[in-house]
């Protein structure tokens, strides 16, 4: 368990370094307040509405009802712009390029298939706008589900002679559905998606960004140990190199975890930030810290000195934070930039946090985000660790 002594020592050193503590924990808390307040406007009146392209090939009434009546409900119409598309390929291309959030196609015979119990709606999503795309997808899914329920009820009523014929099901649905769905669909959107709160978003985004700065700091401590001779002293003790490197990694992990937990606790208590489902938030935090710690090991492996690690860390963290949505929310960015978010730790972590914070997502819902972050962290740890082990105490 020698590696735990090494990790504990690194944690103790952090708590003795007041300047580092202030930078790594105080700054994200302060920036959350500043950005969450200053940019709040962007999140309300200036949040661009999502463009929904639609193609209705259904000759019945139900398909058009989704477009004309559901997406025009007050709670949905405020953030959705509907546009009819004629060419499916061109519409798909616009979605891929981020010019529209989704393409909704209502297939031919949709109304008939509802009556027959096999309705299908197709939703093609912009991968860079997962939050809005998810909400629109949920509306379509909810609509189809409600139709299905009503069909079952009406078939039962027809069977009991309450409605004259089962063939009148579609007409009956068309007459009574809206009264019911107005509530249920608005409820679906409002119930599963909180209003986007800028303070909440920036708590997560600053937390993740400073998590990366923290591991960059961890990388510099590793190199300072090499330059100061204490790393050599560890290598001269009867401790295996893998335990020393493991201890340093665990130390970086614990420091990063301490940092983000402080941010989460403080913003929860003082700013009333809602971090969502505790298990999902914890899963994201642990996996984001693992990814960031792997990055820290990579920075230490690549850099020749603490000074160069410091510079390299900044060179990596800042662009990653911009691309990953830590500076500006992804929805406010061009589509090309949004697709690059998938290459960043911030992008995967923030997508997960926004889903947990604003969509009541659970751990299973952000499982992919956690796995990607864990995988990236493990890969960087392996590559960086092997490189550091080869270097030993040599710069």
């Amino acid at each position, binding site marked *: 368990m*020698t590696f735990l*002594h090494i990790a504990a020592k690194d944690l103790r050193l952090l708590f*003795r370094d007041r300047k580092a503590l202030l930078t790594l924990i105080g700054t994200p808390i302060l920036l959350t307040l500043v950005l969450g307040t200053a940019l709040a406007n962007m999140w309300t009146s200036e949040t661009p509405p999502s463009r929904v392209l639609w193609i209705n090939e259904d000759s019945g009434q139900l398909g058009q009802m989704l477009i004309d009546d559901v997406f025009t409900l007050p709670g949905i119409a405020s953030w959705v712009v509907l546009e009819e598309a004629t060419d499916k390929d061109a519409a798909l291309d616009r979605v891929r390029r981020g010019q529209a959030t989704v393409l909704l196609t209502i297939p031919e015979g949709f109304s008939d298939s509802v009556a027959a119990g096999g309705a299908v709606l197709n939703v093609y999503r912009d991968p860079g706008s997962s939050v809005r795309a998810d909400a629109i997808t949920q509306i379509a899914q909810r609509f189809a589900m409600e139709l299905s329920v009503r069909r079952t009820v009406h078939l039962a009523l027809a069977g009991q002679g309450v409605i004259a014929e089962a063939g009148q099901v579609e007409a009956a649905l068309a007459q009574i559905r809206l009264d019911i769905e107005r509530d249920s669909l608005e409820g679906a959107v409002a119930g599963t998606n909180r209003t986007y709160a800028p303070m909440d978003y920036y708590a997560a985004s600053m937390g993740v960004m400073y998590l990366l700065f923290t591991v960059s700091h961890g990388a510099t401590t590793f190199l300072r140990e090499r330059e100061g001779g204490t790393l050599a002293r560890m290598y001269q003790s*009867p401790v295996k190199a893998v335990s020393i490197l493991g201890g340093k990694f665990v130390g970086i992990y614990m420091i990063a975890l301490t940092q983000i937990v402080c941010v989460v606790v403080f913003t929860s208590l003082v700013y009333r930030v809602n971090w969502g489902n505790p298990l999902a938030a914890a899963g994201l935090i642990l996996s984001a810290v693992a990814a960031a710690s792997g990055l820290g090991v990579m920075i230490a492996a690549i850099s020749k000195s603490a000074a160069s690690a410091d510079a390299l860390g900044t060179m990596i963290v800042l662009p990653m934070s911009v691309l990953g949505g830590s500076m500006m929310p992804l929805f406010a960015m061009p589509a090309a930039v949004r697709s690059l978010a998938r290459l960043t730790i911030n992008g995967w972590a923030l997508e997960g946090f926004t889903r947990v914070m604003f969509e009541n997502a659970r751990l299973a819902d952000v499982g992919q985000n956690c796995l990607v972050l864990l995988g990236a962290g493990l890969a960087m740890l392996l590559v960086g660790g092997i490189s550091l082990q080869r270097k030993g*105490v040599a710069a």
Partner: protein
Amino acid sequence: MTMINVDNVSKNYGALRAVDGLTISIESGAAFGLLGPNGAGKSTTISMLSGLFPPDTGNINIGGYDLWQEPMAARRLMGIVPQDVALYPALSALENVAFFGRLHGLAGAPLRKRCQEVLELVGLWDRAREPVKTYSGGMKRRINIAAGLVHSPKLLLLDEPTVGVDPQSRRAILDVIKELNGQGMTVLYTSHYMEEVSELCRYIAVMDKGRIIAQGTQDELHMLLGGADFIRVETSEPLTDVSFLEKIPNVRQVAAKGSELTLTVPNGGKALANIVSALAAQNIEISGVKVEQANLEAVFLHLTGRTLRD
């Protein structure tokens, strides 16, 4: 029993041959000095002996364990005091020493006991809870030694442990090392300070440009000079040409560094008059003269034509 056995060890850094065919053997309980100027290869030797990196060729055996076949067993025997202070400035002396003790497997009451013992040994127990960054350079050096002693090693490797320290701390460090050696601990002490090696070590190897150029007891090394004395002359101005001094009868060797001349002669008293006359004849003003009996510096001068401080 042999504590250290180094057999034909070499190490290159690119084109530079830092250690060249080093062979030494140190008995258990001995104090062995590795004397040489800066850049002689002493630190590289210590680094290889402590297992930081392997030699390019040759074998190292510590206490019966091959250093690269059984590194953990060999490292358990060793305490290392590196040339530079290798401590955590933000941690206290006690925390530093305890941390390195834990790396050697100590814990609980035995660790606390050893920490107190070694901090008392270096005279800093009363300030053990203060951060190391508040200490003087000499105090840091003493803690640096304590960190190498906490696990009660059988072999202590010290790499120039007194560089840059005040006379009081140097005295304290030398006294600690003598005490440890007196208790039976094997000591390998590297330095370019001839006086320290003379005081501490019975066995000495003189190292220059990566090679051992002489080794033995101090008496054996002095005999290499054939009973020579050592005259140091301070001149008012630096000399560039000292060939006239080499022509003086009985002057075996002349080394000049700035305004300091070092001459090796068989009898200092007899040669001094001729040397002073020769300098006067060249209108060279003498600001100081000192005659010393044969010492390790004279041995180094005799073997290399240079002083230890060159």
